[in-house]
């Protein structure tokens, strides 16, 4: 028990204590952003790595969470209508917006909204045994549709611009470095708690069931389980994580826009999970942080080459290390011990 939790505890200390002490505020909030992505990645690791559902639409849930939080922040900043409504010609606060004034309702929507949508979608498609590539492409189409919808409803959503220009979160001034540090700690703790919970789930019987469904969904029916139900629950859980991540992302980064939840960002997250190693939850988390960091670092060094690097890195990992960074690390450790 202690041995197994040792690496986790070490990482937790570094993330929670060392990083805030060493990193300047700008870098710390970048790290907070990567950790938000890591929460989404954790959900993808669960849905894809464990249960075999390749979801290319996780951005949709991330976005729902982000928009819920953004709406709340816009409503609490005072001074009447949100800025984008003013220049979009909206004169009265739309009814849809009203509940988001309440912080509890807004947070609940950020998490439960995505779960509900995932549950409905999951029930529809899994019951009909839509799976594998079909599911992947459907969720990708969902992401595409979601972006178009958001962009088209400019008065309600801020259109392509999305929402930005937030001033404070739950009474704390967002421009303040201490608020940013606080947000960082919140994100890191949420990630830690979710990681432990998900790991518990994956190691439980439920986790074994997920693997069984991934490898032989039809056979599982003859063991008396309803794979559609199990998959729907799992999909909803991963959607909830993405939603929560989105809600945390908005105060950390200060913007939510359709560009953050379309086909490409959704795919990028899946890619990050693959690079980290999808079969292990730690790999998913690691992948998100590494890819996030790499993106920042590369684009600061040589912007034009980033696409080459991202593509090449990815091709190399997929062909040479299909189990990702974690897989390489495991192999290396095994080689050393034997």
């Amino acid at each position, binding site marked *: 028990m202690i041995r197994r939790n040792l690496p986790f505890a070490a990482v937790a200390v570094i993330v929670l204590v060392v990083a805030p002490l060493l990193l300047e505020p700008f870098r710390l909030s970048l790290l907070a952003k990567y950790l938000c992505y890591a929460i989404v990645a954790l959900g993808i690791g669960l849905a894809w790595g464990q249960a075999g559902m390749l979801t290319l639409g996780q951005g949709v849930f991330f976005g729902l969470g982000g928009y819920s939080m953004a709406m709340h922040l816009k409503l609490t900043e005072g001074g009447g209508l949100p800025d984008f409504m003013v220049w979009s010609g909206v004169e009265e606060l739309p009814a849809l917006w009203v509940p988001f004034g309440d912080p509890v309702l807004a947070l609940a929507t950020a998490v439960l909204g995505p779960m509900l949508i995932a549950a409905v979608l999951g029930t529809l498609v899994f019951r009909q045994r839509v799976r594998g590539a079909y599911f992947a492409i459907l969720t990708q189409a969902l992401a595409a549709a979601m972006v*178009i919808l958001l962009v088209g409803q400019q008065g309600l959503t801020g259109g392509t611009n999305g929402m930005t220009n937030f001033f404070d979160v739950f009474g704390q001034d967002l421009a303040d470095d201490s608020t940013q540090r606080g947000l960082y700690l919140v994100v890191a703790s949420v990630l830690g708690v979710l990681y432990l919970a998900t790991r518990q789930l994956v190691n439980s019987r439920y986790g074994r069931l997920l693997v069984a469904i991934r490898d032989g969904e039809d*056979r599982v029916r003859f063991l008396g389980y309803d794979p559609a139900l199990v998959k729907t629950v799992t999909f909803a859980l991963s959607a909830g994580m993405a939603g929560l991540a989105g809600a945390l992302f908005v105060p950390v980064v200060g913007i939510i826009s359709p560009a953050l939840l379309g086909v490409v960002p959704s795919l990028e997250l899946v890619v990050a999970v693959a690079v980290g190693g999808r079969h292990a939850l730690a790999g998913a988390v690691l992948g998100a942080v590494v890819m996030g960091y790499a993106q920042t670092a590369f684009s600061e060094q040589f912007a034009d080459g980033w696409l080459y690097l991202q593509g090449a890195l990815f091709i190399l990992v997929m062909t040479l290390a*299909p189990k990702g960074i974690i897989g390489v690390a495991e192999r290396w450790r095994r080689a050393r011990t034997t």
Partner: protein
Amino acid sequence: MSAFANQLPIGLSIGAVLLLIALGLTFTFGQMGVINMAHGEFIMAGAYTAFLLGDLVPALPAAFLVAGTMGLILERAAIRHFYGRPLDTLLLTWGVSLVLQQLARDLFGAPNVQVPAPAWLSGGVGILPYNRLFIMGLAVAGVVAVWAYLTRTRLGRRTQAVVQNRRLAATSGIDTGRVDMLTFFVGSGLAGVAGVALTLIGPVGPALGTYYIVDAFLVVVAGGLGQLRGAVLAAAGLGLLNSYAEFWSDASLAKVIVLAAVIAFLQVRPQGMFVLRSRALT
């Protein structure tokens, strides 16, 4: 003709474009199970081939060869390590597509380039311009060629055998490596041909492929994996739906309606329009 009636041929011509871009996928995705996200970039390669040659007709075979060769290289260099792991190919080829886009940007520059449409394609019949009719003709020719290849040639049969049971195919004397190469060559080559056609109607630039890739996969999914007639019907259906939905609402909503329709359709036919049923459990 009334605007409403006009939308019928328009819908069919949209369908022809969809079919043309999806045709190659019936090979690489439908036959081989490879979700090739770089398909869009092979389309792009075809379009740039037309740009380099400056003439549409010789560009058709040339683009087939260029895109086909690119596909062949991709297959040999990477994809062959991934058979039986379709979801992994999706991610791998996405990486490839990023690299190809950047490569196009470096080779041809970020701005769009222009491929002159041949003079004989100006004008039209009724609402349909000749360039649209040309694309429809090309789509029909493509379908016939693919159908003949798959059902009338030994290679087609061999392709299916390899897809259905790779190991058994090898122990039945089939050189699976060659079949894979060839199938991928043809599928990618078809993308190249589609790219040439697209120069008639859209921008030719590094992002060309990204505009079409989601639609192409939707056609294949709605039609049923590897089902040629399914792809034809799905393309026509989606084209018409798109045309009328946009006519009654707008382009954004039409896209959403089409996507919703595909999801709804899969509720009724989860494996697409046509399915090959197998007794085996997954």
